[in-house]
């Protein structure tokens, strides 16, 4: 027969074994992240130079730089945000401030969640069918930006909604009590309080847009272009697509590995900076709210 003391000791031992296993697993996940980052950095850092960032690809993508891809990605970020940011914010304002509780609001929320769950390649198919073919935009910045804009719309809406929810109701009541109209309250009181978090959402969406490949495959991306785009109807080269083609389907896959590592590093650094910026802003904002 086991003594109660022994049972207690056994229980404690089991617990500490289990906890160490869990701790180990959690740390190894962090390890995975750092090994991915470390690998890309170590392999890619050799390719990075001022020339790499500012010159054009040469010799069938084996030499030169990725300048047009960087410019193309910036164009796509701007294009998709011009479309998605205002509509997303207005949409969140409607859902959170204006619409009344009921099936309509639930339905809109449900549809927003569903849109967020649509696979990115389906956005690509849709963009090709509607924007490229039906509306005759062709493969262009316009078609690509609209497709990417739709893709990040749920993210903009969700983060803006979170920002609006964090504004205490007393601000709304106070403003209304002073005789301000609904829109005056929303635009002069609520948005100014919520806007740092809204901007965080904008930054997160930019991070998402800059890394997406599948939606731009057929709507805007080009393997190689002789010059920078000059209108909304032009195609662009883009960082994620460039990495994809250089790593898989170029004619000199082995020779262009250096460029692939360099592109991956630029892409990862871009996305990390964007995410860290968003985190930093969020922290500043939460401090500010506490002070209130």
């Amino acid at each position, binding site marked *: 027969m086991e003594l109660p003391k022994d049972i207690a000791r056994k*229980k404690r031992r089991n*617990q500490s074994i289990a*906890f160490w*296993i*869990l701790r180990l697993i*959690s740390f190894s*996940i*962090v390890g995975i*992240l750092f090994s*991915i980052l470390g*690998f*890309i950095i170590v392999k890619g850092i050799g390719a990075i130079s001022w020339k790499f960032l500012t010159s054009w690809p040469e010799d069938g993508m084996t030499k030169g730089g990725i300048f047009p891809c960087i410019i193309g990605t910036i164009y796509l970020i701007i294009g998709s945000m011009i479309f998605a940011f205002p*509509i997303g914010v*207005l*949409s969140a*304002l*409607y859902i959170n401030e*204006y619409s009344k509780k009921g099936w309509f609001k639930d*339905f*809109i929320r*449900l*549809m927003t*969640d*569903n*849109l967020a*769950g*649509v*696979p*990115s*390649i*389906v956005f*690509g*198919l849709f963009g090709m*069918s509607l924007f490229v*073919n039906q509306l005759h935009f062709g493969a262009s910045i316009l078609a690509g930006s609209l497709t990417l804009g*739709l893709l990040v*719309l749920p993210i903009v809406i969700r983060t803006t909604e979170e920002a609006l929810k964090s504004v205490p109701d007393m601000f709304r009541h106070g403003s209304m009590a002073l005789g301000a*109209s*609904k*829109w005056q309250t929303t635009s002069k009181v609520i948005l100014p309080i919520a806007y740092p978090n809204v901007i965080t959402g904008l930054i997160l969406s930019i*991070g998402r847009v*800059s*890394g997406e*490949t*599948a939606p731009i*495959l*057929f709507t805007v991306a080009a393997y190689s272009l002789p010059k920078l785009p000059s209108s909304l109807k032009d195609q662009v080269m883009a960082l*994620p*697509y460039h*990495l*994809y083609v250089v*790593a*898989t389907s170029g004619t000199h896959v082995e020779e262009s590995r250096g460029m692939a590592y360099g592109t*991956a590093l630029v*892409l*990862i650094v871009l*996305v*990390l900076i*964007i*995410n860290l910026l968003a985190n930093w802003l969020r922290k500043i904002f939460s401090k500010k709210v506490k002070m209130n």
Partner: protein
Amino acid sequence: MVSNLNKQLKDFKERFIEGILMVSGTVTTVAVLLIIIFLFKEGVSLFGKSPLENNISILVNEKNPLTAITAAQIKDISDQKITNWKQIGGADDSIILVTINELSTYYTDDQLGDNLQFVPDKVNELVGKTPGILGLFSTKNLGDKYTHKYLSIKDITIGSFLFGKQWFPTATPAAQMGILPLILGTLWVSFGAILFALPIGIAAAIYLAEIAGKRMRNTIKPIIELLSGIPSVVFGFFGLVVIVPIIQKLFHLDVGETGLAGSIVLAIMALPTIITVSEDAMRTTPRLMKEASLALGATQWQTIVRVIIPYSFSGISAAAILGIGRAIGETMAVIFVTGSANVIPHTLLQPMHTIPAVIAAELGEVSQGGRHYKALFALGCVLFIMTFIVNLIVQYIFSKRKHNQV
């Protein structure tokens, strides 16, 4: 008077703004509907189309009792998997496949004519005297001389599309539009990914929710969230240059591009989702429950296993399903590492094709409005339906959880 007008103007402005907001509010709904309309418009038009190349006729002898044949049967016959008419419901006679290329084994160049002008006559003659013949000729090689029997080909149906066992959309003369290998490939890779990611993810979630101190948690959590910010194309590239060679060496394979490589990459990508969602679920366990368990003399570990995990079970299953949904729809990470195989996979150590990867790889090369183009949109429909169902299940679980908590 003036103030009245002002008030009216103000009212109008308010209502105008509310209208604009409402229109913006419905944008996502409109987007989902448009996606459904455009996807299905292109996809559904595939069904009822002939899988046969344009202008090709299937010729048989009058004695042949068959009237129709399927695209899969034509492929099997040209691969010599089917060699007797009996196998597809005809008479007991071996199949003699004749196309324009084989004609020269039956007739000399002189007999066919300098400019092949006698081909129509000879085809007609050959079909007439060979009971087991299966002729595949373009109308240009038949002219108006042909007098014997035609076989019709069965159109592409939803059934033959979903359950067809081969995906060779550009095969000639009959395209093979069966997506079963792609559906199974997608499921193999996704479930493989969850098999890896779920135990690890739950372990990390338990650690973050119950064991880690506040400082440790505030360090690890943002790092794991960073993992979800890395673009999928970078994961795919990492998988290609690191994981694929490791798998090839480890299992002594000819190629490392396998379903397993896809599962591992997708597992890494699914981890942040699984960890965040299940940690949130565990955190909602009421304090009272935990303390009651501890007060009864249970250790913290026993409390986790017997109280917290059962309580948050629905949240954890939502995390798993959400992870599967993400994995099913993921394109770029998979396209790098799973290789491509158009036949039904049997183990994770085989190359596989997934639905999104096939769409991404093939849509660039097809002509707009063609059969292959439509087939890829139909694939998009299948993918959309799969992920839509997954989303609805997750939303149902979440709404039920919320309901229970109130």
